[in-house]
């Protein structure tokens, strides 16, 4: 077996520890930034929903500002965002390189996308349910958690899946500017040195991660749909 693997991907076999380390870095970048993206995305998605015209806490000013800022950040290409956010990253985490340096741009690049996912998931909640909860004397905060968020779990699970997979794609790009991870490994060790088997190996690892996330996402969505 080792002989066979050595014959088809000699360069990868020499750098197996590096491949493992890069994988761990990618997962670190993904899940550390995800913790923030999830919290902010839910907050902004809920705010967009309730401050909208006819919403629970209608507030045109908040809605318009949030809506425009989200559009702005979604319009900027991620590679530009990476560079523009170097000073911000230095100010917040003290460095703009490595895994830590990638976290801030990943958050700024993904929160707007996830906020829209949350907004569209909440938009699927039947306004009749909100009305019924109001008629029962449920508070506004109660309606947000017990009706909007609870009732849209299947749709939220789909939004989380899409966002996480998107996020992994972005970590690879962050890798290209010195953040480490599989993207960096593929670019520096594979592409620049003409070692194609390294590039292919990172693709295989990413496919496995993406597939796992999709399977878990589908499962959660299915289990929570009644």
């Amino acid at each position, binding site marked *: 077996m080792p002989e066979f693997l050595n014959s088809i991907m000699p360069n990868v076999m020499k750098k197996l520890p590096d491949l493992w380390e890069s994988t761990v870095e990618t997962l670190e970048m993904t899940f550390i930034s995800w913790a923030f993206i999830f919290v902010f995305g839910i907050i902004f998605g809920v705010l967009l929903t309730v401050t909208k015209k006819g919403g629970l806490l209608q507030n045109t000013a908040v809605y318009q500002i949030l809506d425009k800022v989200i559009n702005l950040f979604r319009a900027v290409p991620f590679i530009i965002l990476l560079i523009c956010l170097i000073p911000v990253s230095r100010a917040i985490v003290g460095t703009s390189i490595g895994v830590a340096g990638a976290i801030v741009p990943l958050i700024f690049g993904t929160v707007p996308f996830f906020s829209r996912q949350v907004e569209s998931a909440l938009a699927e909640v039947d306004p009749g349910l909100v009305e*019924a909860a109001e*008629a029962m*004397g449920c508070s506004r905060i109660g309606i947000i958690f017990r*009706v909007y968020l609870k009732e849209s779990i299947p749709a939220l699970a789909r939004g989380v899946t899409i966002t996480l997979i998107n996020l992994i794609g972005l970590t690879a790009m962050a890798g290209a500017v010195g953040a480490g991870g599989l993207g960096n490994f593929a670019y520096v060790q594979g592409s620049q040195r003409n070692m194609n088997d390294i590039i292919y190996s990172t693709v295989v690892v990413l496919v496995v991660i993406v597939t796992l996330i999709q399977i878990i996402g589908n499962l959660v969505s299915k289990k929570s749909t009644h």
Partner: protein
Amino acid sequence: MIRLENIVKTYSDGDKSFNAVDGVTLDIADGEIYGIIGFSGAGKSTLVRCINLLEMPTSGKVFVGDKELTALSASELRSERKKIGMIFQHFNLMASRTVIKNVIFPLQYSGLTKAQMYEKAHSLLKLVGIDDKADAYPSALSGGQKQRAAIARALVSDPQILLCDEATSALDPQTTDSILKLLKKLNKELGITIVLITHQMNAVKEICTRAAVMENGRVVEENDVFNLFANPQQPVTRAFVDMTSNLSRINALIEERSPLTELKKWQCIMRFKYLERSACEALVSYLSRTYNINLNIIFGNIEIIGGNPIGGLVVIADGRPEDITAAQEYLRSINVGVEVILSA
């Protein structure tokens, strides 16, 4: 129990504005089943939402019990709303929760323990007849069962009032009937005041004690249900009453020149309407014996509303003109409305 004073609800879109409810004053007594009927767009759903202030009236006052709801703060209003149950046309059950979890939804943070909540919810599910569905999700229920679950949920915080917004409009006739019976039973057993919004005259006829007819945001007619059916005053009320009876179908038959309406000599088509509580008498046999006329019934519609029979007959009368005139006079004397629709 409920008093609405000059309620106006205006929606405006740019410079156009529209009064969905236009100056409605209503008094609904404790323990009553009060119907509000009207065609789509008459403003009845908006009006019922003004009772628990899901819609804040543009002007006017809402009293429930001895409290003026329109004068309460947001949090006081929330606690008052718990005393007003509401059910909807599309049930509005939470799809992610089982039936029992839906029913205890209003009880969260009420200070009850979990066990007390479940006990209460189960007793209500028994009352509405679906305790066996407690652990099912709403998607597994039929329309009637969903509405029963919604009724249990509406009753779980012991309200004094139940608002029903087109609660039977999405159900088939049999299920409608069973839900109406359930509402009547709840009214009797719990003494709960029910406000029923509907466009189905049958629902009003089945269970209401009094009713208001709405058109263009106004209440055009209000009466106890028997009088509403016996003496409809407004064209819209008459339209609703006609919907529940087949007595006006004779006009269509005459227009179509149906063979049934080809009259021979000495025949005429008449419509009898029982105006007062007089429908129990053996009218047809009495007329034929006393006045020697033959009566052929083509349409008949007699219903029991508020415990009293109401309705009428369409007949082809066959007899000498003087006998028919005498029979008509007799009928008028006992307060039966007579109308000759066609004579040979």
